[in-house]
């Protein structure tokens, strides 16, 4: 039989105590190490945090500098990156018109009536250039019989801002007269074709070379003065003013035209304006029987809510026995055009126009036209137009009734 050692329990207890003591000492060593490691890590994090704060600050300073630079560039370019600007407008027309004159030819025509490009340049705060280059009827062909097409400079002028209230222009400019002469982009007016009064009495787009001043006397009153080349109509054309346009193409400048306009826009949506023009000879002294000519024009353009109204009257007085002999000593016309824009995209109008380029005699030479139709703007700068026109004309003249469809844009 085997005997058990008497000291075994004591030895085991001693060993256990030694083990605990050793473990405790080792644990204390580990805690110190960990604390040191944590302290070191904390220091590292603090250091990194300081570096990151510095980097954020530097980044903010860089962003601020970049933003300032961008703002400066934008302001130098006038909120754009360039001082040269481009734009344009155009209109495509489909005319389906029956000619009521016996034996007259109907007008069934699709025509790219106008394609116009703008170009402007701002030289500095006070000096700018503006131009419009136009192609009418899609093309101009050099043929023996010629073509309907025209390539023309519609405007080309320099504009000098003398003060906030005054600017001076010199070059080829649209005359300051009427409602659609200066603002003739298709989305800005009702009807496919420009109204007949601002075509036959005010020969829109009527441009002449010269010098013009615009002064704003108050926030709602302005005056325009212009000295320019004048019209040069002929006896062969029965002194019709529209046929006197030379449009700056080697225009005769013997008899200058003097034009003044007064415009009032004192109430929101209301414009009242009147123009007076005088030139010493309507034929540029070519016709011995012709004399001076004076144009009076007045108009109102109202926009109130959905309702719009345009009304215009214009009249020419031509001196001389030549114009008087054919009744062209008085040429006049007016139109009234109420409209209703029932949404931002849809508007309807009706227009009554009457004009007479030989109103000085008793013979019936007065034209009358009623138009009504609709404009649809899929975008504020794009328009689709449909209208119906009905004419009453003097005996023996072409009388066109029918539909017009148009597409126009501006940018």
């Amino acid at each position: 039989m085997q005997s058990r050692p008497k000291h075994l329990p004591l030895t085991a207890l001693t060993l256990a105590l030694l083990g605990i003591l050793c473990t405790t000492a080792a644990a204390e060593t580990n805690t110190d190490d960990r604390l040191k490691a944590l302290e070191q890590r904390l220091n590292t994090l603090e250091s990194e945090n300081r570096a990151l704060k510095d980097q954020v600050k530097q980044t903010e300073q860089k962003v601020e500098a970049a933003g300032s630079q961008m703002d400066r560039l934008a302001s130098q370019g006038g909120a754009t990156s360039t001082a040269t600007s481009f734009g344009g407008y155009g209109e495509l027309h489909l005319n389906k018109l029956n000619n009521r004159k016996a034996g007259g030819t109907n007008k069934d025509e699709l025509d790219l009536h106008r394609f116009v490009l703008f170009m402007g340049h701002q030289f500095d705060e006070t000096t700018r250039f503006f131009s419009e280059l136009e192609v009418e009827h899609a093309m101009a062909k050099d043929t023996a019989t010629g073509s309907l097409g025209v390539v023309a400079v519609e405007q080309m002028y320099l504009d000098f801002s003398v003060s906030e209230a005054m600017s001076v222009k010199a070059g080829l400019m649209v005359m300051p007269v009427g409602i659609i002469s200066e603002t003739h982009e298709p989305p800005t007016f009702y009807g496919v074709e420009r109204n007949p009064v601002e075509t036959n009495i005010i020969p829109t787009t009527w441009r002449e070379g010269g010098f013009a001043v615009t002064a704003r006397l108050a926030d709602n009153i302005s005056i325009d003065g212009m000295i320019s080349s004048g019209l040069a109509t002929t006896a062969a054309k029965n002194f019709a003013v529209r046929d006197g346009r030379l449009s700056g193409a080697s225009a005769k400048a013997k008899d200058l035209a003097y034009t003044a306009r007064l415009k009032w826009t004192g109430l929101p949506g209301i414009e009242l304006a009147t123009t007076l023009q005088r030139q010493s000879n309507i034929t540029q002294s070519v016709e011995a029987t012709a004399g001076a000519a004076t144009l009076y024009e007045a108009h109102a353009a109202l926009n109130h809510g959905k309702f719009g109204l345009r009304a215009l009257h214009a009249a020419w007085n031509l001196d001389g026995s030549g114009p008087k002999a054919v009744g062209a000593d008085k040429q006049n016309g007016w139109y009234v055009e109420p409209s209703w824009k029932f949404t931002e995209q849809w508007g309807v109008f009706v227009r009554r126009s009457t004009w007479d380029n030989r109103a000085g005699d008793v013979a019936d030479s007065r034209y009358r036209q009623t138009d009504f139709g609709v404009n649809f703007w899929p975008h504020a700068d794009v328009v689709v137009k449909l209208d119906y026109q009905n004419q009453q004309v003097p005996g023996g003249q072409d009388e066109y009734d029918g539909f017009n469809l148009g597409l126009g844009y501006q940018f």
Partner: protein
Amino acid sequence: MTGLRTLLLLMLALPAWAADQNTEIERFLTETLGKPPAAETLWFVGDLRPAVRAILEHDYPTARVPYWRNEKRTVWVLNEIGKEMPITVGIAINEGTVERVKVLLYRESRGWEVKSPAFTAQFSGARLAEGQTLDRHIDGISGATLSVRALSRLTRVALLLDRQVDKGTKP
């Protein structure tokens, strides 16, 4: 020649060009806020950039705009091209409502009628409606269509920016 002489005399009689943009901005701020606080900056970041683009139909030409805030009123100075040149407009908004619109600098050759207080008064009281449009119709000006549109768009942008600032200050 008499007419020409009259025009030249009129030119001399009118005040000299004084359209300094900073002067006009400072005047507008003083008129609107009294002693204006320091300008703050709002960046076109996040959803704000496309929202502004949707109104203007192009990006705003700068990446940020300064504004001035006094309690619930914010004042903005913004630029937008009418036809060719930028129009600088000051717009004061109070609690999401247009308090005042003023054209500070008009550089276009036509359409200056939008400067008229009678015209800009139409914006007072306007708020943003659905689709970031104005809650009212603004009567246009014949021959100044593009300038009228520029002012309407800037007013909508100012209301949107005011809303953004207001959103940012709420907890």
